[in-house]
């Protein structure tokens, strides 16, 4: 990408950009304490999202390890069952609403989207900061709920259970979800407007990086589905606190309505957690395989297809709630249809890898690991999407196995891949590859050891969400618990690596991977306004192996 257009305005009195020779009033980069304040720079916000989310990941992870320790034996001997339920509920809630969604969309989306489309910031920087700052209080509300017994009803909060256990904790939980929901709506509208209207004029739609296509689809999905969850939660809150009976069958209410409202959001929510990851995959794989992505258009459009079809499959979570036959039929078919655009992506990546000059960097290892695990998770998803099979395994550990293959093996692996890939851009320093490999190996073994046996447990009929189980399941559970300990340990080399590299890692330079998307044309970390001179796009984002020169902004302009 070559740089031609000079800025059409001379720096005014608030100029922040270094123009060679002239003085300027702001530093090129933020000071450390700016990262703890209400900062409107999209890059700061992206980092704020990533770091906060990671802290919640550690908290949610500790809860998971505690639960697995409890499940190492058939009896409830370690945690009191109520505490187990509270851990189970808030583990799920934190992992979904405070780790995967905010880091994948808020973190990577905010850091990368403006850089990738050649904008200086998001369309609404203040709104963006507000969206981020709704997250910490949400987390605090969830943690506070433990002082009131902890919400007990699982991350789905199905009534009537959620109406009869720990009402204060449940209300706090609802408020927390409403906060993160608001955050995600505000964030999404910002992404939609930014991607649609703030691309550099020289970038054609088919030169838009696939990550941006993915974030666009994700945002549309979030905008359409999150408010419906809000509606359901408001009704639940009224039932809990103000004496209404929307979900109280004995007073004319109906619990299945809640399930519809909930899953109309929460099925799409699984795509909120995976579409941005698909975007990350589409960036990481071509760069480290040194090949153009296979089927750019197919991958871009399949994101949009997943977004549309994803809105029509929610009932596959409710096959066992008295769903009439025609509905089961309709939603089985629509569910199976979603597997098609998903498959398109998988084939696109495999074809990109095929014959590529693969560099087995940590980012690439996680991407390849993701491919393997996500295929597993997708396949178990397809089996459950068919109503007859789902009726059999619903609410067993088979479901737990499925969604951990897609969420851990998919989303979390993808977030890791993204961090290894963009860490040099974000911090200006390289991560340590040896520690990265150790991290990958531990995570890969840990994930499979923890979640593979759960398929078998589920098929044998072990119910999910219980602190005690029939002793016949002991052996497999022990394996799962060992896996969980390994997963717990796997976070350590990563955390050390991230902290240590951030402080003292090798200087990265502008473009350590020789990548072709726009974010690599600016300095690492990028200057406050991203570029001194906005880049001009002269070729597609994935033309590896073709005769194009990846140019860094500074080189071209000085």
């Amino acid at each position, binding site marked *: 990408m070559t740089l031609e257009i000079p*800025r059409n305005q001379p720096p005014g009195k608030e100029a922040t950009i270094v123009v060679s020779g002239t003085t300027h009033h702001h530093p090129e980069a933020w000071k450390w304490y700016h990262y703890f304040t209400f900062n409107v720079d999209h890059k700061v916000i992206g980092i704020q999202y990533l770091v906060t989310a990671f802290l919640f990941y550690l908290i949610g992870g500790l809860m998971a390890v505690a639960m697995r320790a409890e499940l190492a034996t058939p009896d409830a001997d370690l945690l009191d069952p109520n505490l187990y339920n509270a851990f189970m509920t808030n583990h799920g809630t934190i992992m979904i609403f405070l780790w995967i969604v905010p880091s994948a969309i808020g973190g990577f989306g905010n850091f990368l989207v403006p850089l990738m489309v050649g904008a200086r910031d998001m369309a609404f920087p203040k709104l963006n900061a507000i969206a981020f700052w709704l997250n910490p209080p949400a987390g605090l509300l969830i943690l506070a709920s433990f002082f009131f017994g902890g919400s007990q009803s699982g991350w789905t909060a199905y009534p009537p259970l959620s109406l009869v256990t720990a009402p204060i904790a449940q209300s706090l939980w609802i408020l927390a979800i409403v906060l993160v929901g608001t955050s995600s709506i505000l964030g999404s509208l910002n992404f939609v407007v930014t991607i649609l209207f703030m691309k550099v004029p020289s970038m054609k739609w088919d030169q838009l990086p696939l990550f941006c296509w993915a974030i666009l689809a994700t945002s549309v999905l979030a905008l*359409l589905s999150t408010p419906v969850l809000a509606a359901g939660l408001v009704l639940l809150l009224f039932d809990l606190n103000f004496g209404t009976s929307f979900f109280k069958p004995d007073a004319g209410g109906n619990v299945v309505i809640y399930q519809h409202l909930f899953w109309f959001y929460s099925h799409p929510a699984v795509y909120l957690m995976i579409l941005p990851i698909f975007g990350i995959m589409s960036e990481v794989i071509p760069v480290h395989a040194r090949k153009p992505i296979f089927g750019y258009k197919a991958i871009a459009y399949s994101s949009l297809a997943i977004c549309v079809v994803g809105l029509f499959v929610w009932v596959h979570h409710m096959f066992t709630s008295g769903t009439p036959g025609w509905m089961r039929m309709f939603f089985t078919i629509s569910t199976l249809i979603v597997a098609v655009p998903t498959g398109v992506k998988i084939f696109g990546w495999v074809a990109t890898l095929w014959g590529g000059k693969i560099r087995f960097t940590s980012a690439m290892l996680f991407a390849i690991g993701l491919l393997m695990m996500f295929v597993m998770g997708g396949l178990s998803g397809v089996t459950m999407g068919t109503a007859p099979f789902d009726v059999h395994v619903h609410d067993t550990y088979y479901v737990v196995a499925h969604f951990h293959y897609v969420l851990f093996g998919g989303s979390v692996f993808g977030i890791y891949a993204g961090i290894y890939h963009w860490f040099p851009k974000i911090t200006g320093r390289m991560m340590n590859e040896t520690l990265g490999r150790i991290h990958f190996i531990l995570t890969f073994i840990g994930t499979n050891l923890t979640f593979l046996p759960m398929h078998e447990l589920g098929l044998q009929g072990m119910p999910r969400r219980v602190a005690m189980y029939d002793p016949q399941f002991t052996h497999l559970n022990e394996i799962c618990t060992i896996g969980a300990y390994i997963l717990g340990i796997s976070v350590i080399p990563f955390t050390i690596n991230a902290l240590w590299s951030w402080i003292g890692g090798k200087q990265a330079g502008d473009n350590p991977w020789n990548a072709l998307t726009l974010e690599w044309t600016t300095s690492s970390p990028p200057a406050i*306004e991203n570029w001194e001179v*906005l880049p001009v796009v002269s070729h597609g984002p994935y033309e590896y192996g073709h005769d194009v020169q990846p140019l860094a902004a500074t080189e071209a302009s000085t």
Partner: protein
Amino acid sequence: MAIATTTSPSHHEEHKDLRVWGLLTFLISESLMFGGFFATYLFFRGSNEVWPPEGTEVELLVPTINTIILVSSSFVIHFGDTAIKKNNVKGMRFWYILTALMGAIFLAGQVYEYMTLGYGLTTNVFANCFYLMTGFHGLHVFVGLLLILGVLWRSRLPGHYSATKHTGIEMAEIYWHFVDIIWIILFTLLYILTLF
């Protein structure tokens, strides 16, 4: 250093004011929250033999007057928008004050209705839906009112709004139309459909 240049407050390339697009996106999103409420209501309506249940008499007179006021206020506010596009700040203020008044009357009518109805929030599922949906809508009218008052407050500053600079005015108007459209659906569901 002291180079004489036109000092622009913004130091980089201006981009178009995108706030209207932001608002539209937000409103599309928000209408789905009402969509959730509507769906819930329709579900109950479809699954109950008697709807609204015995003893919940839906009062029609005040809400109908209210509806007429709210729907006409959408036209009134539009005149304000037309006025500002002709650089007529006074005219805009007139129409916006009128809209605010109509909105306030609507809210007052709603409060009056709540006080005189023979049932409360917890009476039965219909009443649950009724108060929740109209209450949420009322909250939106209130927010719309605040937006309009904000516009009026700012329009005191000379030159704040003009034929070429009126995004705030436009946004208040769009929001007001949104509130109006939601009300029409609400009115149909909660009042008119109960007649059949």
